[in-house]
């Protein structure tokens, strides 16, 4: 039955109210497009969000949805997933929601490895409150709340996630339709907490923040597409690569004695490599794709296994005998 579904089945009857030109439209379209391919009955899909532009997302998905409070979506999703492990639970958050007010919940849900699909829309700005700097805004950012420029050192969502030993860490770009679809599918296939940072353009308050990786004219020179088992190359003609110079990565031009054999080969299971790539910032190219993917027990499965084990060893809970435990006596 699930296979018979189409994109339209995942479109709710609510009018989408993001600003015209917002990157969120593109992300919504790719998620709706991918959904029928995931093979999950629609009634088992739940989208949970916090507060912010990105968090309006659940209203537009014709699935179960819960638009909650600022920053708390990972905790709400945890309670749902623990008690209803058969559900496909997605968390939609943003750089403010997920990394500022909800930073605590995000790191804990990642370290616990709750089987949730977490989409963090990073536009490096507060959109819904009209343009204050966010925890991912660059130092020097001039906004309404930082007229003299922000002196606030930013978070890098990828290395924050890696720092928690998240079991799946990836990045994509709002306008990269095919790439985004593929990565969403990968994230969904992963068992455990999947963390996907989506670079998203806020055309009102932070337009062009990711131009170098989204502008067709120049992106090839700035985007490093990570592919497991393949050498790290980029550039319009795939003529540049990443080579280790001692302990430091450097950009090299292929040719003149340098071949792909000299380049770093991407390995999704190598956490140290993932950290190194996670730290790439201009003038290094911006990596997109899966930084890190590993298999480790999920929190929800482990908790439910404990419950099952308790049932096996103690038998199903029996209220009468439970109430009569402890220091007891009879009065006749």
């Amino acid at each position, binding site marked *: 039955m699930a296979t018979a579904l189409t994109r339209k089945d995942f479109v*709710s009857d*609510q009018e989408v109210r993001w600003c015209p030109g917002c990157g969120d439209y593109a992300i919504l379209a790719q998620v709706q497009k991918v959904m029928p391919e995931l093979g999950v*009955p*629609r*009634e*088992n899909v*739940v989208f*949970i969000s916090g*507060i912010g532009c990105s968090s309006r997302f*659940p*209203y537009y*998905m*014709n*699935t*179960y*949805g*819960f*638009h*909650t*409070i*600022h920053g*708390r979506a990972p*905790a*709400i*999703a*945890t*309670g*749902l*997933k*623990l*008690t*209803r492990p*058969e*559900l496909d639970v997605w968390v939609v958050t943003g750089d403010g929601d997920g990394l500022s007010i909800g930073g*605590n*919940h995000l790191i*804990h849900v990642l370290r616990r490895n709750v089987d949730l699909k977490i989409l963090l829309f990073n536009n490096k700005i507060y959109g819904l409150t009209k343009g204050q700097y966010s925890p991912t805004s660059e130092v020097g950012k001039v906004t309404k709340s930082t007229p003299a420029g922000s002196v606030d050192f930013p978070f890098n969502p990828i290395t924050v996630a890696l720092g928690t030993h998240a079991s799946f860490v990836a990045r994509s770009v709002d306008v990269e339709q095919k790439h985004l679809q593929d990565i969403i599918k990968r994230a969904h296939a992963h068992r455990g907490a999947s963390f996907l940072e989506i670079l998203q353009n806020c055309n009102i308050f932070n337009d062009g923040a990711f131009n170098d990786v989204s502008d067709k004219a120049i992106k090839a020179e700035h985007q490093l597409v990570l592919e497991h088992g393949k050498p790290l190359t980029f550039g319009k003609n795939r003529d540049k690569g990443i080579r280790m110079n001692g302990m430091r990565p450097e950009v090299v031009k292929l040719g003149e004695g340098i071949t792909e054999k000299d380049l770093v080969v991407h390995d999704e299971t190598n956490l140290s490599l993932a950290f190194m790539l996670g730290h790439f910032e201009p003038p290094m190219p911006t990596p997109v794709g899966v930084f890190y993917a590993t298999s480790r027990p999920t929190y929800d499965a482990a*908790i439910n296994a*404990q*419950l099952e*084990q*308790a*049932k096996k*060893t*103690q*038998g*199903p*809970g029996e*209220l*009468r005998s*439970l*109430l*009569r*435990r*402890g*220091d*007891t*006596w*009879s*009065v006749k």
Partner: protein
Amino acid sequence: MAVPPETAQQLAGSGAAGSHKPVVSKPQFVIRFAGDSGDGMQLAGMQFTTESALAGNDIATLPDFPAEIRAPAGTLAGVSGFQLNFSSQEVFTPGDEPSVLVAMNPAALMVNLEDLPPNGVLIIDKEGFTDANLKKAGYTSNPLTDHSLDKYQVFQIEVSKLTTSAVRELGLNTRAVNRCRNFFVLGLLSWLFQRPTKSVEDYIGSRFKKTPDVMEANLRAFKAGYNYGETTEAFASSFEVKPAEIAPGFYRNITGNTATALGFVAASAKSGRPLFLGSYPITPASDVLHELSAFKNFPIYTFQAEDEIAGVTSAIGAAFGGAIGITTTSGPGMNLKAEAIGLAVKVELPLIITDIQRAGPSTGMPTKPEQADLLMAMYGRHGESPIPILSASTPADCFNCAFEAVRIAVKYMTPVILLTDGHLANGAEPWLVPDPDTLPEIKVEFRTDPEGFMPYLRDEETLSRPWAIPGTPGLEHRIGGLSSEHLTGNVSYSPSNNEMMVRLRARKIAGIAREIPETEIFGDAQGGDLLLVGWGSTYGTLREAVTNLRAKGKSVSHVHLRWLNPLPTDFGAILRRFKKVMVAEMNMGQLLKMIRADYLIDAVGCNKIQGRPFKVSEVESRILRALEA
């Protein structure tokens, strides 16, 4: 109630002790165990409580311990106390003041002596009174020798020396030997009050199962204490407190926190839905988390969250999925949960928030009780967000209230706040264990029919919306914190719709009054001179004070509220039958404010904010003053 002075006189031995001393029967004793927080006084107190319950006495207990796990040894800050009232009659409170005080060191004496009435019995570990310990407690001279204790019946016992000689053959180190001292004292008191000792021996056997030498040492210390009482010349007689007249049935000794946990388990079992507790450790609420963590087979999910907010929000997520979602905390945690509770109000999901109140503001006195969170429970959220509030009046009553909180939450699709406090949480009393078959049904019906489904289509009687959980085909829908349209639940900024939804939710909560039974009036149902109104853990004290005054011919009655929101429908009429209304609370007058506001009655307060329960005598004198005014 204090032990009569002649009892204490009889306790003092004349030096002519035999192997079988006389046993003197007494109706009641109040014992307070006090020592360093490492001295094991809570344990000794709890075990003595069990012995007394097994002896058939009615009992009430009050543990009183510092927030510091191990404050510097011998200091005033490190004193830990446990008070037990055991009686051959019905007991309402742990007793205003002890008739017997056990003090293991000078600090324990310094902190507790003011509560011991003249002629009270003082059992002292003599060896604890070293120069260093005296100094730490602030004594400039040794009370054991300076005659300052002459008005009490003092028994100075070399507990360490006697314990050491009892366990010498086992070759334990000094530290391990010292940790047996509490069992020596427990043994002595067990002899003094003729307690059955089997429960303690069983306890030692199971508690130290894995360390046989420690088990043996504690057993020997316990028996040595018992035999010391029998053989020493210091005690001329022992005492017995005959069993109380207690309704027949199966009893267990239970603390408020255990009762709270069991109430939730029972509600989960009766509803057929799994229980999910999201919680963050906080004193004095953590024991509910500990208890529930042991009942996984029911099934019960316990989630020790990263913070208080995740505790409540994870419970909301579980409730969204159809589980019984609960969170437990104390005052500071309530503040943090406020926004999430507002979300549960708005999306109308069942949720139970247990606030085990402690003395505030801020960190306050974490181990001491207070009732100052009532107005926060009523109003501590932004926007119009009414929530039903229940309060438990005794440790065992926590079971009933926890159960009822779940029943109301799922029937009315609303968060419910359950207020208990540190006094109830750690206090214990005998509990007539209910037959699960006699507990009320908790009916949970999830919506499954897509035909005509709307997320906010309300039940005509209760006004509650359907519980439509993910996984149900055809009911896919979105809920959220944004103001939403009547019936469809779609986001709506319509001014009139918003007011309608606010009023509908308020009506829904007010309608819960139909669930509240007729208010019980202790005293003059037709009215009288003064009505004492209370709620929560003050129950026993208030009931005893009113009982005492009525025995003296005063026209005083008592109403103790379980429901604080909504208030019972008959409550206003009851208040108006009395010439005076006094509201007793461990706060500055929070229920008082609600009563004055709701009923325009010129009620007066009886208040105490010391992190200690009222004494019966305090309440009596406040009532007498009000009657004279």
